[in-house]
């Protein structure tokens, strides 16, 4: 243990040197106190906290890292949207969409910093913000890939509604970004556990929904045993998806503490449900739209889809789902899926919030012994 402590002291000294002068004094203070802490695991934990402190306080470097990652994501998405054959009707809307989104995502944190304070320093807040922004960029990336095929001949599904759909999509994305920033700001009313519980639950639901219908359609199985199993999984999945915001809301409300007023607990439940619904919608939208975007290029996926979803006829660029009429072409179907996911992105957080607030109100956490 001694050698580990010495290593940690050396690490803390070295990392403290990376801090700005006005912050280095705090690392020195923590180091000076280390001798007071009982030797062994407690002193090691104290020193490890010091290393964490130096990482956390090296904020200019971290901010630079975030800015660089944001610039790289924006540039990559823009490059993908920018490329396209001449005359492709999707290229101009895609470019406008990506540029607008990058401006919105860059400007919102600045606006929220003024209104609600900087990002909470906790790990949950950082993860939610980083993961959320990455998901939004990923969704734009795969959506532009789908639209590039959808708007091109022979599909030509753009129509006059392309700009309206784009504007609506941008508004929804801005809403998601604003929600993420508001919930993870230092002056947010959501306690960290609320956001963590809601987001983790929502991510699990999103992955489950994607697994049950990766291309937006229910899967088809030939054998009676696999088909029965899948049907049972579908029913279970739907029940779990409906219960998830309720459970997240209950957990968040109870974690808020029984001595908190009912309104505060209901608020935590609502925010946990909101996080659950929003995260689930975002995860399933990103994964499913990515799978749809890959479909025209991946023969393996086409074969799998032909077996489990419907018939793929690449010669005419037509996709006929086993559930829908033949007039649903592949790309039209894709476009419809994209629109469908837009609806999911709008409705799911509201549903989650509603279930969550009910759960928060219903949370009955009796006083425990030994507390006042």
């Amino acid at each position, binding site marked *: 243990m001694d050698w580990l402590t010495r290593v940690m002291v050396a690490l803390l000294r070295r990392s403290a040197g990376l801090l700005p002068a006005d*912050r280095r*004094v*705090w690392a*020195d*203070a*923590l*180091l*000076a*106190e280390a*001798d*007071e*802490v009982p030797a062994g695991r407690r002193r090691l*934990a*104290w*020193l*490890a*906290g*010091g*290393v*964490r*402190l130096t990482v*956390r*306080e090296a904020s200019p470097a971290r901010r630079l890292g975030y800015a660089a990652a944001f610039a790289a994501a924006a540039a990559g998405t823009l490059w993908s949207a920018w490329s396209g054959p001449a005359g492709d009707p999707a290229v101009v809307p895609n470019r406008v969409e990506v540029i607008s989104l990058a401006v919105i995502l860059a400007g919102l944190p600045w606006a929220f910093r003024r209104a609600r304070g900087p990002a*909470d*320093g*906790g790990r*949950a*807040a950082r993860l939610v913000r980083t993961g959320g922004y990455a998901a939004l960029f990923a969704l734009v990336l795969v959506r532009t890939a789908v639209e590039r095929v959808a708007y091109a001949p022979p599909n030509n599904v753009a129509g006059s509604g392309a700009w309206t759909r784009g504007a609506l999509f941008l508004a929804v994305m801005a809403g998601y970004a604003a929600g993420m920033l508001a*919930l*993870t*700001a*230092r*002056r*947010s*009313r*959501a*306690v*960290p556990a*609320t*956001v963590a519980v809601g987001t983790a639950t929502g991510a699990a639901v999103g992955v489950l929904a994607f697994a049950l219908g990766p291309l937006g359609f229910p899967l088809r199985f030939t054998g009676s045993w696999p088909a029965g199993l899948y049907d049972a999984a579908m029913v279970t999945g739907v029940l779990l998806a409906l219960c998830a915001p309720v459970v997240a809301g209950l957990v968040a409300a109870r*974690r808020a*503490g029984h*001595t*908190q*007023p009912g309104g*505060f607990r209901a608020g935590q439940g609502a925010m946990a449900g909101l996080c659950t619904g929003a995260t689930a919608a975002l995860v399933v939208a990103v994964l499913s739209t990515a799978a749809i975007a890959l479909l025209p290029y991946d023969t393996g996926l086409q074969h799998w889809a032909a077996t489990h979803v419907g018939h793929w006829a690449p010669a005419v660029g037509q996709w006929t789902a086993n559930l829908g009429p033949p007039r649903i072409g592949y790309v039209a179907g894709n476009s419809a899926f994209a629109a469908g996911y837009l609806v999911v992105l709008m409705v799911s957080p509201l549903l989650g919030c509603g279930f969550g607030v009910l759960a928060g109100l219903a949370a009955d956490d009796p006083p425990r012994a*030994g*507390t*006042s």
Partner: protein
Amino acid sequence: MAHRSGFSAQTLAVLADLCATPSRWRHGYGIARDTGLKSGTLYPILIRLADRGLVEARWEDEQPAGRPRRHLYRLTPDGVAAAAAALAQAPATGGTPARTTSRGRRQVVAR
């Protein structure tokens, strides 16, 4: 992500600890021991409070025998006022803040 008072439960715990003897200079390990906070949680809180002018800090004047000089902290007059206001608003414990145990769970401080 904060308490209704604008401070997190952990920050309220630190404020409550410092507020108990506002004129006394305290050292970091003592506050950590009283509040149950880990160093990686406590020191960022002290830094933020110092940045906001609610806590003042200084090094011990003289070099004590057998140990390094300590960094000492106490509330400023603004800090005393802010702490009193925040603790009065803390509904969880009727004026005392939630406390983070060594396992990271919030619990009520019985004082």
